[in-house]
């Protein structure tokens, strides 16, 4: 549905994105993940034909961003980083204006607007002036504007920013439900959001794509070494002697659990040693309270990828 190839964009001398490429299939929800100023917004602005890239190509629903921006604009709903609101119109007037410029025929306009209001849960504030709404409601009006007329493709720049936790869950549910029929690209720097809503993630840092995969695959791909967490009750020397018997252990982190004086170790090992380790601990007569492997969270992957540290 969306093909992006080698997009590069400069603002004057400053490079915003460099050779960004990715594809989005129909019905897929793609998350663009990256720290602030990574180039997420720039990529989105290019895809929505707000501005052209310095070089590179992109096709949205088969239409080229250079040659047929008009066709693309008919198909997309776009929520910019700052919702594009007219502060002095009320919610209904605002959505009416959006419906008009999106070319919704006048006989359908009323239905389209009321169903959008329902989707974005704006019923209570529809007569209120947009400028007087709270940040969360403004964000929802912005989202309503993007959803209006049920566009095939949704491009959402940080859709849950400024919302309270309950609203965030609602919006995520809404986005999830929209997937399947709609193709969605959303950007965020909030990792759980990607894990919860997106089928695939593109991580952008300093204008370049550093990783692209499903959230699960990204986690497993980067899990080059196992991490085992072990909680035991016993003295350190004995435990150390147990560890000495395992050649697979590469790194040991020790921590005291203050509550009950247990010791908690985080071991990085080359293979899964849980079974043998558990047996060894029990044989020495120590209390084994917990033993588990730990996956890298997306957060850690993100940090690893974006801070250019060697993968531990």
């Amino acid at each position: 549905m969306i093909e992006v190839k080698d997009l590069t964009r400069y603002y004057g001398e400053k490079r915003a994105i460099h050779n960004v490429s990715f594809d989005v299939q129909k019905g897929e929800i793609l998350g663009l993940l990256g720290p602030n100023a990574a180039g997420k917004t720039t990529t989105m602005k290019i895809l929505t034909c707000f501005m052209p890239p310095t070089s590179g190509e992109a096709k949205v629903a088969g239409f080229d961003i250079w040659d047929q921006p008009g066709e693309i604009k008919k198909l997309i709903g776009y929520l910019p980083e700052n919702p594009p609101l007219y502060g002095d119109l009320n919610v209904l007037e605002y959505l009416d204006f959006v419906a008009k410029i999106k070319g919704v025929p006048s006989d359908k306009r009323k239905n389209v607007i009321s169903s959008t209001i329902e989707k974005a849960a704006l019923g209570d504030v529809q007569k209120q002036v947009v400028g007087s709404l709270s940040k969360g409601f403004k964000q929802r009006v912005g989202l309503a504007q993007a959803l209006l007329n049920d566009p095939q493709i949704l491009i959402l720049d940080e859709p849950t920013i400024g919302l309270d936790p309950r609203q965030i869950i609602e919006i995520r549910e809404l986005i999830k439900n929209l997937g399947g029929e709609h193709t969605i690209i959303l950007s965020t720097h909030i990792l759980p959001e990607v894990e919860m809503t997106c089928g695939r993630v593109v991580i952008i840092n300093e204008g370049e794509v550093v990783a692209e995969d499903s959230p699960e695959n990204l986690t497993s791909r980067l899990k080059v070494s196992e991490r085992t967490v072990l909680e035991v009750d016993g003295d350190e020397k004995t435990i150390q002697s147990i560890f000495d018997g395992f050649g697979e252990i590469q790194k040991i982190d020790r921590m005291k659990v203050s509550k009950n004086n247990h010791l908690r170790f985080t071991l990085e090992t080359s293979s899964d040693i849980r079974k043998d380790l558990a047996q060894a601990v029990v044989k020495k007569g120590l209390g084994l309270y917990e033993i588990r492997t730990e996956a890298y969270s997306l957060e850690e992957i993100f940090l690893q990828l974006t801070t250019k540290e060697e993968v531990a």
Partner: protein
Amino acid sequence: MKKTYAIFQKELRHFFYSPIAYIVIALFTLIAGIFFYLYLSSFVEAAFMDMMRSQQFRTMPQKFNINLQLIRPYFWNLALISLFVLPLVTMRLYSEEKKSGTVELLYTSPLSVNNIVLGKFFAGIVFYILMLIPTFIFMGLLFIYGKPELGPVLSGYLGLLLMGSAFISGGLFISSLTENQIIAAIGGFGLSLLLWVIGWAASYSGPGLSSVLNYLSIINHFEDFAQGVIDSKNVVYYILFSTFGVYLTFKSVESIKWRS
């Protein structure tokens, strides 16, 4: 067309939902009213003095032409007030959209640049017409208590409208260049004033240049209208001027969209 109308409608709403419209109209009416009062009282005073004099010296009273001595300079005056006030109307037409980020909505919606620019331009013109309406009252007073000719009044208003649309197109262009409304207002005012005074420079320049400068001067073309003459040359000048301003706005919007 429908989309141009949607933009047009939205712009007019903005004018009247914000205090700007009321302040601008009130200001314009106030200043226009003060000038009307001054012109009228000096006209009446001159006529009265002449009558006294004619009685004293037993001569025929002079003929006082209200069209020539009141309406004509008054239209000139309205043109000057418009020059000062119109930048306040045009300043926000584009700058505000850029400042608040709503250009992102406009540029990513299936709208052509034409829709946007023309919608805004015509909203400016309609607002100007609404601004002129209170001055009809002043003119009406003249018709109630005197017998002015109607023709020059109508041609004067036509001239004001044409000249106003030229100012608006220029102001819209300046507004499309910046996201700062103050700069847009000052720039629009500067541009209008420059085109106004350019004719003055004509008297100090050589024959070739002076005719060019005279032609360019925005007020020179207005004088005929104020006198009651609708010359196609002047109509064409204002229409060309407005078209050029709208065209420049169009280009400036396009270049912002495609500047890389």
